[in-house]
């Protein structure tokens, strides 16, 4: 009798918990690790203004985010790269529609070198040659006679992929490139290594020198500042995206997405260290 009572109680508790848990997060966001801080900040500010809405943000990587989007375990998927055809295909299989793409922020990629390095500007082509190990010594670039140590990111990083596609023109990174677990680690390594060169978000700064980048030999070099990134003069920049299942893109989710691309949401982007979208891309 007693035991039965207990079991019923436990059952009741679990039942209520199961009912309450999903209700607690009205909007779930999952995906890119690069965007976790940004997404959390958005959620924080939005929830402060709209106390009735709960937003839950998790990282895990862009690919993980797309997998969750397909399985309909998340409402929004943060992505630091464009969705691949293969992923669109699995989405169509899962819910019969293409996910809707929203650009939500701009990110400039900086190239860092050690503060002692006299080299201060490079062309995109020179970067390609350095990161594919065709140029191996700083003296070929007007620097000291030292071999170049290349610091790169893990190949799961959206930054890695972007750099490979847009700077290396799809060629492979040198096998000797050191892969670091995060942008902070790249920066740290370059700050310690006078021979080093690395890349990462422009928002990260302290400790190393950001190079000015030229599109080609003839064009002027640009610093990765907000102005240069937003007006497109700085040659290495990318968009950050949010993908959503079109069937869910209504009500609270749609309002949230709209807010993210409003002036208020874009102000948060600036706070976190990325760059706001130019007005013509906000739709």
């Amino acid at each position, binding site marked *: 009798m007693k035991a039965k009572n207990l079991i019923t109680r436990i059952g009741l508790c679990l039942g209520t918990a199961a009912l309450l848990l999903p209700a607690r997060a009205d909007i779930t966001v999952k995906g890119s*690790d690069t965007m976790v801080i940004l997404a959390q900040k958005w959620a924080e500010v939005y929830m402060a203004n709209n106390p009735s809405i709960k937003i839950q943000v998790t990282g*895990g*990587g*862009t*690919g*993980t985010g*797309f*997998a969750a989007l*397909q399985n309909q375990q998340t409402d929004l998927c943060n992505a630091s790269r464009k969705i*691949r*055809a*293969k*992923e*669109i*295909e*699995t989405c*169509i*299989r899962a819910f*019969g*529609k*293409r996910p809707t793409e929203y650009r939500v922020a701009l990110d400039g990629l900086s190239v860092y070198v050690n503060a002692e390095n006299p080299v201060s500007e490079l062309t995109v082509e020179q970067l390609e040659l350095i990161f594919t190990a065709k140029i191996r010594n700083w003296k070929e670039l007007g620097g000291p006679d030292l*071999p170049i*140590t290349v610091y*790169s990111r*893990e*190949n*799961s*990083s*959206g930054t*890695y*992929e972007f750099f*490979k*596609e847009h700077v290396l023109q*799809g*060629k*492979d*990174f040198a*096998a*000797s*490139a*050191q*892969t670091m*677990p995060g942008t902070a*680690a790249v920066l740290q*390594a370059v700050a*310690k*290594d006078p021979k080093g060169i690395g890349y990462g978000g422009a928002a990260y700064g302290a400790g190393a020198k950001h190079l000015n980048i030229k599109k080609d030999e003839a064009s002027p070099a640009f610093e990765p500042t907000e102005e240069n990134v937003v007006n497109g003069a700085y040659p290495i920049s990318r968009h950050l995206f949010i993908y959503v299942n079109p069937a869910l893109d209504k009500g609270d989710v749609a309002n949230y997405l709209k807010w993210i691309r409003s002036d208020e949401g874009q102000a948060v982007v600036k706070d976190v260290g990325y760059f706001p979208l130019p007005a013509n891309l906000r739709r």
Partner: protein
Amino acid sequence: MGIQRGHRARPLEWLAERVIFTISLSAIMLILLIFIFVGREALPIFLGRMDSALIQETIPPERMNELDPEELRVYLDLSPRQFAGMDRDTLQMLMEVRQEALEEIPPEQLNDPDAHANTTAWRYLLFPHQWSDYDRPRYIWQPIGNIHKYNIVPLIVGSLKTTLIGLFFAVPISVGAAIYVSQLARPRVREIAKPTIELLSGIPSVVVGFFALLVMASVFQAVFQYETRLNAFVAGIALGFAVIPVVFSIAEDALTSVPRSYTQGALALGSSKWQAAWHIVLPAALPGVFAAVVLGFGRAIGETMIVLMVCSASVMSWSIFDSARSITTTIAAEMAEAVAGGHHYRMLFMLGAVLFAVTFVANLVGDIVIHRLKRKLEGRS
């Protein structure tokens, strides 16, 4: 029924026995399920059913009407049930996506001979291949990009390289420490030394990795003056720190469990404490010490975080001062971004299966050697 000495098993005891039995059975089942899961996900690679070629044969969506349903189903790679559940628009959309995938390919790569290669075939996985852009055949692991280069040899070499460095560093130290603590040290020293060394195993490997990344790497570079700051040597030594407590703990147990009378006999015959430990106790405990080393190997090759933090460039080189990328690192770092069910995803599961095979063989060989040694020691060989 275990308990039947003169009285009938009590219901509670019977129940306890059943519960324990079920728990142990479920543990075995769980391990089995994991193997089955890993194996199932990796199977298409083993059977050569994946195709990772950049340029796939594509049928333009306009020609959809010319295909009969079965052809269309096979082309879109759908199961009959999925196919039946889709309306025409969805199928049309799937065909368009295929077309888009083809159009995304940069024009200069359309003529690349590698663009048609199915890089998940075994000859690409195990043997060097001369990719366009390269001057000679090479072993290359570059899974991200238009042409997915999946050569697993650098990863296997990386795993073995770091593991062996770790063992060469850790085994002499930990076996030496075990001999000292179990045979030579005064009881007071033993009481402090043993738990202290075992405490090492409580340090999370992330912390060891972080320490190696920031401190050890700089110190070693200052000492050895090698070129790459983060390399297999640093990772191996850091791995050694993770392995030491495992090897020490088991070796110490093995040495302590050698009957005291062995030592006493040797001492009575006039040997020194050191001679008794080295010539009598260590040989008697050899199977246990060997088992400790085998377990240490398993720990080192399965360790992920340390190698991930310290070095992870997939260089094909046996030099200990070059970087290395281990199998575990690869799985941990790349799984999050792999398209679920895609070839990269399956390739990572295949690596998991390879890793399992390596540790399984190592444990098996270790076990056989231990049994041989035991039989020899007991005079039954």
